């Protein structure tokens, strides 16, 4: 047993001329809440489809729970619960009957415990009252919840949730987050995709960022945050002298803007090996530079992802 729940090497999917997934190397550790992030059309769902054996890879390899994809999926999938590209149900069956139907297709779904497990899963997503209603009458949010309930019919080692908060109101989104948290606390690995960073940032331990089928960054959240270069914001009435001083210590001045009080705001990138901020300030003052403001900023995750994907998070490809 490796410590990775999901691992891909050079995973590639081509649709006609388009590379939907391009040489993807994912590594989602066991026990992690792994966020697969990227704008719409970046290849998240296609990746998930390949991991679950719904689509064949054009190239590369993948392993899920230490089983080869697709050869070993028969052994892996019973341990995987999934929500893929939105929920899908028989509109003419009730919510409970829909779950029972999918449970009957699961080799681990014992008939004897079925109705009990269905009721429990419905309870967990807050659908107990709607259990006997035909899915035809469900709202999108209710269907999304039912889709989550389906993934929870049995204890799983791995949950793959593709955009689980789509169609949910803020309250529902919070509930999904706390559900993910409680599942992760129980030891389940959760692979959750989203085009909205904010929806999953709080619950994930790891993240990968995709853009146009390619992996842009991957690691723990702390690693990803650290990867963004820190910036210095300096407000000074002596921009020329200040810039010269900053450059002397290896900083690169990237912007200069007139500030309201007649001074200038300088922005400069702060390399990892640069001197400590307090030392820089002391040197600036010693050189006769007036320092009216000094701040070291690291980019937020959101800014980082915009930088990585070259666009905001809702933008379609």
């Amino acid at each position, binding site marked *: 047993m490796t410590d990775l729940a999901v691992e891909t090497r050079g995973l590639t999917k081509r649709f006609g001329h388009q590379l939907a997934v391009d040489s993807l190397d994912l590594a989602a550790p066991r026990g992690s809440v792994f966020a697969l992030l990227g704008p719409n059309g970046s290849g998240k769902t296609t990746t998930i*489809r390949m991991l*679950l*054996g*719904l*689509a*064949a890879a054009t190239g590369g390899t993948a392993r899920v729970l230490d089983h080869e994809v697709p050869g070993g*999926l*028969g052994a892996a*999938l*019973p341990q*995987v619960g*999934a929500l*893929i*590209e*939105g*929920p*899908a*149900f*028989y*509109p*003419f*069956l009730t919510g409970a*009957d829909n779950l*029972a*139907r*999918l*449970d*009957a*297709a*699961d*080799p*681990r*779904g*014992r*008939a*004897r415990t*079925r109705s009990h497990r269905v009721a429990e899963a419905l309870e967990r997503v807050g659908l107990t009252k709607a259990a006997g209603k035909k899915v035809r009458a469900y709202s999108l949010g209710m269907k999304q919840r039912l889709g989550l309930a*389906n993934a929870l019919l049995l204890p799983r080692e791995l949950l793959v949730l593709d955009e689980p908060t789509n169609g949910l109101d803020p309250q529902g989104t919070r509930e999904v987050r706390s559900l993910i948290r409680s599942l992760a606390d129980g030891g389940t690995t959760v692979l959750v995709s989203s085009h909205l960073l904010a929806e999953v940032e709080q619950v994930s331990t790891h993240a990968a960022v995709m853009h146009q089928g390619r992996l842009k960054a991957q690691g723990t959240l702390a690693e990803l945050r650290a990867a963004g270069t820190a910036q210095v914001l300096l407000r000074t009435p002596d921009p020329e002298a200040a810039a010269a001083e900053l450059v002397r210590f290896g900083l690169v001045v990237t912007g200069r803007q007139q500030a309201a009080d007649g001074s200038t705001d300088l922005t400069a990138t702060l390399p990892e090996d640069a001197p400590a901020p307090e030392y820089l300030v002391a040197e600036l003052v010693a050189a006769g530079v007036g320092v009216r403001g000094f701040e070291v900023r690291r980019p937020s995750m959101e800014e980082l992802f915009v930088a990585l994907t070259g666009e905001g998070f809702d933008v379609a490809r």
Partner: protein
Amino acid sequence: MPGDRAAGGTTIALLASELRVLLRRGRTWAMFGALAAIPVLLALVVFFSASPPGPGEGPPLLDKVTQNGMFVSVTALVVTTPLFLPLTISVVSGDAIAGEAGLGTLRYLLVAPAGRLRLLVVKYAGAAVFAVLAPAVVLLVGWAIGSALFGVGEATLLSGDVIGPGGALARSALVALHVAISMLGLSAIGLFASTLTTVGVGAMAATAVLAVVAQVLGQLDQLAWLHPWLFTHHWLGMMDLLREPISFSGLTDNLVLQAGYLAFFGALAYGRFTTKDVLS
């Protein structure tokens, strides 16, 4: 965990679930209702017409129904076999995979994991059960209305021999069995069509069109060499079951032919379904 597999999630359990889904659908009952209407209509028309139909008038055997209500079933089965019944079979088999794909439930069945081969087998079995149930509905409703309106007396067979009510019951049930067998090949064709698309209606229409085309080809004398190979060849071969001595050769020939179609189109469906990307 091999114990788990034995305890639940068997193929039988999946088939039971498949049949539950089939029988919870309004569409299925609408088709049963439409099929049931045929013997009812037939019986009522004969019952209320001033003069009983003469030999050879109207649909086959119509003249016999007044002798024995059981023949309402037989006449209705003969009437529904060329078009009406194949239409319902096309709906169920053509929708088997494509319908799940269209709903999106196919991806959830596959990651359950139902297993592609297992799902295909269960889908065919479900369609085959429908192919038995549909003529059974015609048979039972025909019995009910026929015996109510015309009673169950002795009946004259096509060969002129006279049989009792028990014999009539058995013969009409054999006719229904022949019709059910006739639909097995078409169900396999529908299943294959169903693996080609995510649009259920498309697969249904293609299957129904094939059923009609095969019967048209069967009418063309120029294509006599082809006729024994058409899956529709024995569709109206149930008349042999209404003679004395009874001949089962049509029934068994039909079974062999339909099994051949099942093997061929089942293999095509397997080849297609086990390799295709499920992207819906």
